[in-house]
């Protein structure tokens, strides 16, 4: 049965055509936008929320652990102490022991949920003033396309101080574009458009790595985000754009989205 099924070729031929048609969906996907001009860094928000929740669960854990250890020690069978056979709770005590903890747990749940929702809105609402880059993932590379049609592989160059929006899809299996330093990931998959955004503020290099099992070489599917000073980025971006214009050969079509500007140019 090596090599899959004998029917496989039906799918592969039809597949190429359908993928080519999937292009325009890139532009139509609705993404909530934040027009206020105020940018909140989701990564910093993540750190804050994590600390809050960590304190919360530590308190709960310590209460339960101390209670358990205390009871185990206090009521151990030993010479001079024989316990056991505790009376069942009275109805009032039973109700109290269910209603009060339930309210405490519910209050804690809603406290965490409210904080989580607040951060969620930050994470999913993209500032209007942003750089938008398209990502097509494949076994085993990250292919980025810039607004002017420039393409890079496994290397995402971005200017410092500008929110970056990635619109993502995949040409084969499911991948997940994970930026550990920016505390965000989202799956990219065939037939669907997903997005994530992050806010690089200082020049530097950050890891990109795949976090959805995508095949044999999954653990080697790494890339880099290179954050450049805005001027340096602008120079690189324009230079690459010029190179692209001068190149005579048309872009090879990988089946992903072909930028509109590029289409006009070649027409």
């Amino acid at each position, binding site marked *: *049965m*090596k090599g*899959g*099924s004998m*029917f496989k070729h*039906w799918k592969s031929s039809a*597949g190429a055509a359908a993928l080519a048609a*999937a292009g325009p969906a890139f532009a139509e996907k609705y993404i909530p936008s934040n027009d206020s001009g105020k940018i909140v860094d989701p990564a910093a928000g*993540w750190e804050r*929320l994590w600390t809050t*929740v960590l304190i919360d*669960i530590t308190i*709960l*854990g310590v209460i*339960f652990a101390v209670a*358990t250890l205390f*009871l*185990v020690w206090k*009521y151990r*069978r030993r010479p001079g102490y*024989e*316990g*056991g*056979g*505790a009376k069942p*709770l009275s109805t009032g005590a039973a109700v109290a*022991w*269910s209603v009060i903890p*339930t309210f405490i*747990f*519910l209050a804690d*749940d809603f406290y*965490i*949920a409210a904080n*989580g929702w607040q*951060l*969620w809105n930050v994470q*999913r609402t993209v500032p209007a003033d942003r750089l938008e880059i398209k990502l097509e993932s494949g076994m085993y590379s990250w292919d980025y396309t810039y607004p002017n049609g420039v393409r890079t592989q496994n290397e995402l160059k971005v200017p410092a101080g500008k929110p970056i929006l990635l619109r993502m899809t995949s040409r*084969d*299996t*499911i991948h*997940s574009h*994970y930026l550990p330093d920016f*505390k965000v*990931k*989202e*799956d990219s998959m*065939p*037939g*669907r458009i997903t997005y994530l955004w992050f806010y690089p503020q200082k020049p530097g290099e950050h*890891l990109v*790595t*795949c*976090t*959805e*099992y995508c095949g*044999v070489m*999954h*653990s080697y599917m*790494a890339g880099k985000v290179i954050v450049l000073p805005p001027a340096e980025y602008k120079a690189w971006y324009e230079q690459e754009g010029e190179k692209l214009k001068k190149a005579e050969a048309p872009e090879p079509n990988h089946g992903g989205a072909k930028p509109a500007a590029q289409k006009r140019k070649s027409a």
Partner: protein
Amino acid sequence: MSVIKEWVFTTDHKRVGILYLIGSVAAFVVAGIMALLMRAELSAIGPTLTANPTTYNVWLYAHGAIMILGFQIPALTGFAANYCIPLMIGAKDVAFPRLNAFSVWLFYMGVILALLTFVIPDPPDVLWTGYPPYSTITTGNTALYTFTVLLIGFASIIAGVNFLTTIAYMRAQGMTWNKLNFFVWSIIGSFVMQLIYVPVLGTAVLLISFDKYLGTNFFDPTIGGDVLTYQNLFWFYSHPAVYVIFLPFIGILMEILATFAKNPVFNYKVAVYGGCWGIVIISGEVWIHHLYVSGMPDWLRIGQMVTTLLISVPVGLITISMVGTLYKGSITFETPMLYGLGTLVLFLIGGLTGIPLAVTSLTVNLSETYYVVGHFHYVMAVAGTMAIFAGVYYWFPKMTGKMYSELWGKIGFWFTFVGANVIFWTMMDVGVRTGLPRRYYDFAAFPQVANEQYIMSVGAIIIAIGFTITLLNWIIGAARGPKASDNPWGSMSLEWTTVSPPPHGNWPKPPVVAEDWNPYAYTKR
């Protein structure tokens, strides 16, 4: 020869239970060896044990699939339920003994199919989750995965029908619903979930094989399918599956805590109707938390963040009952109780570290990292497995009529407990600090975690020593341990009122339960 025939064709629930135990422990050993191989591979950067990532991915598949489908679920709903439910409710056997035998046969066929992974030339490498499109384009044998799931799932459905019928109709005279052991309730909850959700899993994995081998396109977006459909179907079963494992292990724990504290279960009715049934009811509304970064609609992720957090209410009530059972007890620390308390601690850590994962905005960072692996190993792998061990030790004198060695039992416990914490605490820590992704054959992109990876590999060896001691202790105890009395723990529960090991039919004549009896009716000593 006749002994073998007697066991293979048995319809006695106790023998079926022991067959389930032997099969699942064998599966555990195999899946455990897979874990050791993976830890050896991950002990240093780069290829260590194998230069072929596919080999590693097959270990990964075998470890996950066999641990969950071949060990945890069968050990809890197969072994523990089979052995104890009829004894606890005072029945002479299950309602459909032959169906019961059929279910254990199916289970063995499922395990054999799973073990074929190591024989066939193109073993499955699709993880225990089998996500398309990878599972439909890989050269690995996805059909093996499909049919392993189907066989063991079918065994589980049959067992579900059988046990729910048994508990409903075959309780001893006078055994009202509120006199059932907490463990019996946990098995009811477990099988109700199995009956509702296993068919969904069966459908999902069958459609994968249709897609791969018959040219259908349920999950192929290029011809109108959708990859996310599978993930939804899969987790619609597989999150409740966590509670299918969780409830019985909490049930075993509760029995042990009550017996060794000589106390009734604290706030029994709330633990049963609020805790156990609360989990059953919420279990089906939280599966999206496995798809927090899969591009599900934003509002759905927020909605299921709230439902997921709500799980803390029934789980919290059960935990209060467990801790409260110790209050004013007469606590002794034999091996089962040691395992019971150890499990309580591990389950607390595992449960609480799940709360951040319920929060979708935290999970966008934590998902698919070592943090997740650490968290669910605390709950399922370590707490679940230690609860199963606790149960085996607890019912050992009943099953064999003999006694294991307390000393070696305790030594085995400490090795397992310490090793587990070394691995999985380190794992959570690494996951949060560096975001190290799971399912990586090589962590070349994360050189900063080399020391921690090495420590975790040492922890795996410590666990392996602990388990080897435990297994030998069981085998030697069963073969030539000293004779045990019928009720060595002084329990009030019904299974201890018959002789050890119980004869076919369990009691000479059906037990009748007195008005003032309940399984935890201890008197002040």
